[in-house]
Every structure is written in structure tokens, then in C-alpha cells.
């Protein structure tokens, strides 16, 4: 894949977040908007992921989570995540990031302490998985910008949907 300087990406992301903060007064709205933008990105990026990694459908959610952490993060953020804290029935896990290229140069001022700066990533995962028929919930539970020791995203499979014939027979 063609590569560029990661700092351009990081600074552009930062400037975009700054623009959102200026456009919306409410930090919660910014969090939502970041998630929504991520969702849209996920819907586009999934095809590149599938086409370039030549992935067929994953056998279960565990495999999906591993692929996101090892292949997806590598491909698009040039870093990897580890998958831990599975629940008993294998529908919920944590993705742990130690290196988050979105947050270089960043320090959150006090009045923005509720800002989920990297929330875009949650949206990307949600959007990408929606395209392969998996509805998930994804959110940050630990954030180094807020003083935690790692970045931790909690990923929860809500349902796997199916495809039915979209037209009525007598249509």
C-alpha cells in the first residue's frame, strides 16, 4: 500500500476535531458526530480491507475481532491491537491499543475532558462490520488522554443479520 507521513494524518484529524468542537457547542454532540463519521468511513473502507486481504467470511466473532486487531489496524493505522477480556459466550471483548496514531501531539484541556477524542475508531469498526452483516456496539472505556494506562475499546456483538430477497415476487 502507498504510504504517507503519519503526522499529516494525525494533524488533519486533530484539526478536524477542532473544527467539530467549534461547530457544535456540546461535547456529547462532537462525540456522536465523530462516531457517525467513523461509521461512514467504515462502510467505505471495508471493501478495501476485504479486497486486499482476500478475506472470506470469518467463522465466528472471535476470529472477526482478531482480524480487526491484527490485520485491520495494521492495514489502516500501521499499529496493532490486542484482544482480551472475552465474556463467556464469546460475544464481547476488549481491543487494547498501546499506540494510537490519532492522538500524537494531543493534550485535552480541562473544559473538553468529556471529549472522546478517538471516537472515530469506534464508528469505523461499527460501520465496517455492519457491511458484513454484524451489528455491534463499540465504545472507549479507557483513554490515555484521560489518564488511563491504555486505550481500550469495548466491542459487543448485538446480532448477525441475514439477507433476504429485497423485492416482492409479484412486484
Amino acid at each position, binding site marked *: 500500500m502507498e504510504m504517507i507521513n503519519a503526522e499529516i494524518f494525525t494533524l488533519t484529524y486533530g484539526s478536524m476535531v477542532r473544527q467539530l468542537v467549534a461547530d457544535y457547542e456540546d461535547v456529547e454532540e462532537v462525540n456522536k458526530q465523530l462516531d457517525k463519521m467513523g461509521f*461512514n468511513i467504515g*462502510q*467505505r*473502507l*471495508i*471493501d*478495501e480491507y*476485504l*479486497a*486486499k486481504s482476500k*478475506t*472470506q*467470511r470469518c467463522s465466528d466473532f472471535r476470529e472477526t475481532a482478531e482480524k480487526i486487531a491484527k490485520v485491520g489496524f495494521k492495514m489502516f493505522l500501521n499499529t496493532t491491537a490486542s484482544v482480551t477480556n472475552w465474556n463467556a459466550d464469546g460475544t464481547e471483548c476488549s481491543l487494547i491499543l498501546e499506540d494510537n496514531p490519532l492522538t500524537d501531539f494531543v493534550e485535552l484541556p480541562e473544559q473538553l475532558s468529556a471529549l472522546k477524542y478517538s471516537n472515530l475508531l469506534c464508528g469505523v469498526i461499527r460501520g465496517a462490520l455492519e*457491511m*458484513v*452483516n454484524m451489528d455491534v456496539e463499540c465504545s472507549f472505556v479507557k483513554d490515555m488522554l484521560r489518564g488511563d494506562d491504555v486505550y481500550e475499546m469495548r466491542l459487543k456483538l448485538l446480532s*448477525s443479520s*441475514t*439477507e*433476504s*430477497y*429485497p*423485492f416482492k415476487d409479484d*412486484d
Partner: protein
Amino acid sequence: MGCMTFYIFNRKGRCQYYHEWQRLKPIKQGAGSQDEDFKLMFGLCWSMRALATAVDPKNPSKQQMGAPMRIGDGCSFNSIKTSNFKLHYLESPSGLKFVLTTDPTVGSMVEQLQYIYASLFVELVAKNPLYTPGDAFLFEPFSAALNKYMRTLGLLS
């Protein structure tokens, strides 16, 4: 001239892109309208997969025929060859369906459709900021690249 028509469907059955190089029999004499033609083509590919899954002698399936399936479940197919034309088919795990009709003498297009998906669709459509996933699109660079590729393959003079 080997290629005839080309369709991309999203997973909801909407035709996102259509191009025809040669269509000797006009749509009017066939499906009637463009929309109807899209619907029939999508229906043909859909039914092909559903029917094949139903009669599949190899893999047991607990599902009733016509029941909703997950993308990639059941039987897939690469092409349908008829006396007059051949239909080449690729379904991505995200449910995009690429359909190319050609002369019946044209060989396997599995890799070529994969190329169209990975290199043309991803690069020139998915990355275009003006593209909305799932919606119909008409981007000059994609159309140009598709034509060029067909020429490279010797399917278009």
C-alpha cells in the same frame, strides 16, 4: 468485441452502476424498462445461488429454500454460460455483486472481476469523497478505467 454489459448491485439489490458496450436486443424487447432489467438481472443471480444451495448434494443445509442467508453462505457461482452469452459473477463478502456479460466463448473472469473490485472499485469509487456507500454513482475515472481494462483484456476494440 467480447463484453456486452456490466452491473454492480449493492446488497439490497439496488443497481449502483450499469454500463453497456453492446446490447443488440434493446431492453424494450426484453425486460421492458431499465429498472425492470436491473431487477431481473439481480433476481437471476440471487435465484441461481438460492437454487444451487437447495439442490446442493454435498453440504447439508438446515435452511428452507428462499430463507434469508448470510452473505457468502450456501453455494456461490462464478459464471452461467448460455448459448448466446455468458454471465460472470463475483460477490464480495460485503455483499456487492459484480456482473459482467460477455460472448459465450470468453474464458474464466474470476480474477478479472476481483481486479475490478480491488483496484477499480476500491480505488476510484470507495475512496471518492463524493461516493455514498450503497448509492448509484457515475464517476468518469471509474468508467474510463473500466473501458481501458476491457480493452487490455481484448474484450473491447
